[in-house]
């Protein structure tokens, strides 16, 4: 991104082209296969130690269903409690407003050296691009996020943003961008991150992070991580801004227990991540540790539109563990970048249309085989296939060709003799064409949908007899009459 460039839109229109590129990239497919398999295995091992898993899932699902159906009152409770404790809460209706709030706070506090910890919501609003355009220097400090920032890319996985890169690629990138000797040793590469980012932490004056959970009854917010960079972002700079979606609220402090049992196990297969930090307002004494000012930006950006029906609300229950990505037969083949959204995989296909609009992401709900593996692993039991079907239905507007075609088909199908006759004509023509090989190309030109279908697949060989013929002759007979 260059400074001054407008915020890039979530644009998921070109799934087809991007997925073709991904499928042709052997290195990417190797990395994807390794990572999705390993994540899924780690999750399996963690679940083997958790006999009450189903009870936890059911509890979490019920808490989310209740909270989202009364989101207005829980948000209000959260804001009131948080403000009592001195947290400065800002509402943002869309991405532009969220970005402006952050840059306005930065200007007010004369902060320009920004350290960031991993946050999907700041990716969603394009915060880095915005801050750059305002003359600030945001630095990602999570190792994976830093790698993709140096590479000028976007995250490809919700919890492991740079998993599409091999150690060789990271080593080359560090060498080119930082002017250091190239190493392919993971430990050495990790040390490079520690060394370089320490220098940025040392003089940072603004910290930006995401949020995993907002606790309504105490006005607190919780951040999970493993590296310690989020703690540094939240402890060293004089100002801290946390940015999150309105759907992250849970009613009670005690509810954290069940969510902290589900989230790390589903994401990385850990019983608990290394760090959880619970913030309840800024520091009380001036000389104490932590930022002088603590802000929270609550973002809508299409979320409230998903509140109308119980099914749509389910999508807002997502706790961003990434488990559905690792088991998705589509994601496993094409990876996160093909989706063109910061939220890839099954959950991305569901929430991106709401965040970016049908125009940008209307085709994403079709990027699924509806196998249901995502629903089976979801820690909060989101019915992802049902949501995908619902979105497909709403995104589909039948054109005149389709309407006419289906009307004709239903009339023909209601007349057995006519249907049989036309069926015989069709199968014979196809058989004839297959013997010469010319027909499939011709059909493709005459009927565009078939052509698209045929482009990537070969037309199945026509059997000698139709089902109707076999049925007439008795299914158990080997040789039906012709």
């Amino acid at each position, binding site marked *: 991104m260059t400074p001054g460039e407008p915020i890039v839109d979530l644009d998921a229109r070109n799934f087809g082209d991007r997925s073709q590129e991904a499928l042709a990239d052997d290195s990417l497919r190797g990395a994807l296969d390794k990572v999705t398999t390993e994540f899924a295995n780690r999750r399996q091992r963690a679940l083997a130690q958790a006999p009450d898993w189903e009870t936890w899932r059911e509890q979490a699902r019920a808490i989310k269903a209740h909270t989202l159906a009364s989101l207005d009152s829980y948000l*209000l409770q959260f804001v009131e409690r948080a403000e009592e404790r001195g947290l400065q809460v800002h509402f943002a209706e869309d991405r532009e407003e969220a970005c402006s709030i952050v840059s306005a706070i930065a200007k007010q506090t004369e902060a320009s050296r920004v350290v960031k910890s991993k946050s999907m919501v700041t990716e969603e609003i394009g915060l880095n691009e915005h801050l750059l355009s305002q003359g600030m220097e945001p630095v990602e400090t999570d190792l994976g996020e830093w790698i993709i920032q140096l590479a000028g890319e976007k995250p490809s996985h919700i919890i492991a943003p740079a998993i599409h*890169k091999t150690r060789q690629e990271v080593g080359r990138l560090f060498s080119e961008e930082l002017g250091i000797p190239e190493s392919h040793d993971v430990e050495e590469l990790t040390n490079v991150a520690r060394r370089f980012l320490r220098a940025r932490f040392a003089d940072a004056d603004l910290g930006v992070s995401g949020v995993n959970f907002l606790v309504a009854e105490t006005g607190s917010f919780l951040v999970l991580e493993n590296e310690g960079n989020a703690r540094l972002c939240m402890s060293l700079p004089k100002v801290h801004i946390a940015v999150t979606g309105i759907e992250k609220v849970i009613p009670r402090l005690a509810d954290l*227990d069940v969510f902290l049992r589900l989230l790390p196990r589903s994401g990385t297969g850990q019983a608990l991540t290394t760090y959880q930090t*619970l913030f309840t307002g800024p520091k009380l004494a001036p000389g104490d540790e932590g930022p002088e000012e603590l802000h929270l930006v609550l973002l809508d950006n299409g979320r409230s539109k998903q509140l109308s029906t119980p099914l749509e609300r389910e999508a807002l229950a997502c706790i961003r563990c990434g488990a559905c990505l690792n088991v998705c037969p589509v994601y496993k083949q094409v990876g996160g970048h093909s989706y063109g959204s910061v939220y890839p995989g099954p959950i991305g296909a569901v929430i991106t249309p709401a965040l970016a609009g049908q125009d940008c992401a209307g085709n994403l709900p079709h990027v699924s085989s509806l196998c249901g593996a995502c629903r089976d692993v979801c820690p909060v039991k989101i019915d992802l296939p049902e949501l995908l079907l619902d979105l497909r239905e709403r995104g589909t507007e039948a054109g005149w060709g389709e309407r006419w075609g289906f009307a004709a088909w239903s009339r023909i199908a209601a007349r057995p003799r006519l249907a049989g006759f036309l069926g015989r004509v069709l199968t014979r023509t196809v058989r004839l064409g297959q013997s010469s090989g010319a027909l499939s190309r011709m059909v493709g030109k005459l009927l565009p949908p078939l052509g698209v279908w045929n482009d990537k697949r070969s037309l199945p060989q026509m059997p000698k007899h139709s089902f109707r013929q076999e049925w007439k002759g008795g299914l158990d007979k080997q040789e039906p009459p012709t």
Partner: protein
Amino acid sequence: MSATDHPLLNAVRSRLKGTQPPPLPPVLDMPTARGGVDAFCQALEAVEGQVHRVKSSEDGLLILRGLAADRSWNAIACSDAAALSSWRDSVGLACHVHGLRDPIPRSELLEMDVGLCTAQLGIAETGTLVLCSESERHRLVSLVPPASVIVLFARDLVPDLASALRQLQTQALPTTTSFITGPSRTADIELTLTVGVHGPRSVDVILIEG
């Protein structure tokens, strides 16, 4: 504008109009984990943490001295915990106290070899240390130096996270509550586990059982 009338909340309200929310389930009554010192040690060691069990504060100090000698620590950043006041003078290292009135400057803190503090609670099931900000200034000393030594009294061990949350809620929550389970880690490159990325590379817990 007060939060109540904000357009965003109104948008949420209008979308939810007529919705009958399903009931909020009671907090799950989970079987309490078995707890105890052994469980704590096992869980922490499983994530590359080290536990040193001692009978008294004096023995704990000996452990710290031994660690300092083994690992060639010179400068130690110490929180202002009252329980550590006697250790600070006799640890035998250049000891810098991170206090409310005279915090260690950021640039100096970055040069320290090890940070020392106490934990307010320990969670046996996961090997987690809970640091409450109102008790002492331990947020940075437990985070910035490459090594962390945390003193935990066995009487502050609770069996599981649910018990810890209940205990925290008996009074107003501190501004910052940090839950720490082992050393800092990452697996962002090829999912290869690497210990010690931004936070400490080692976490040694001195568990005082006396």
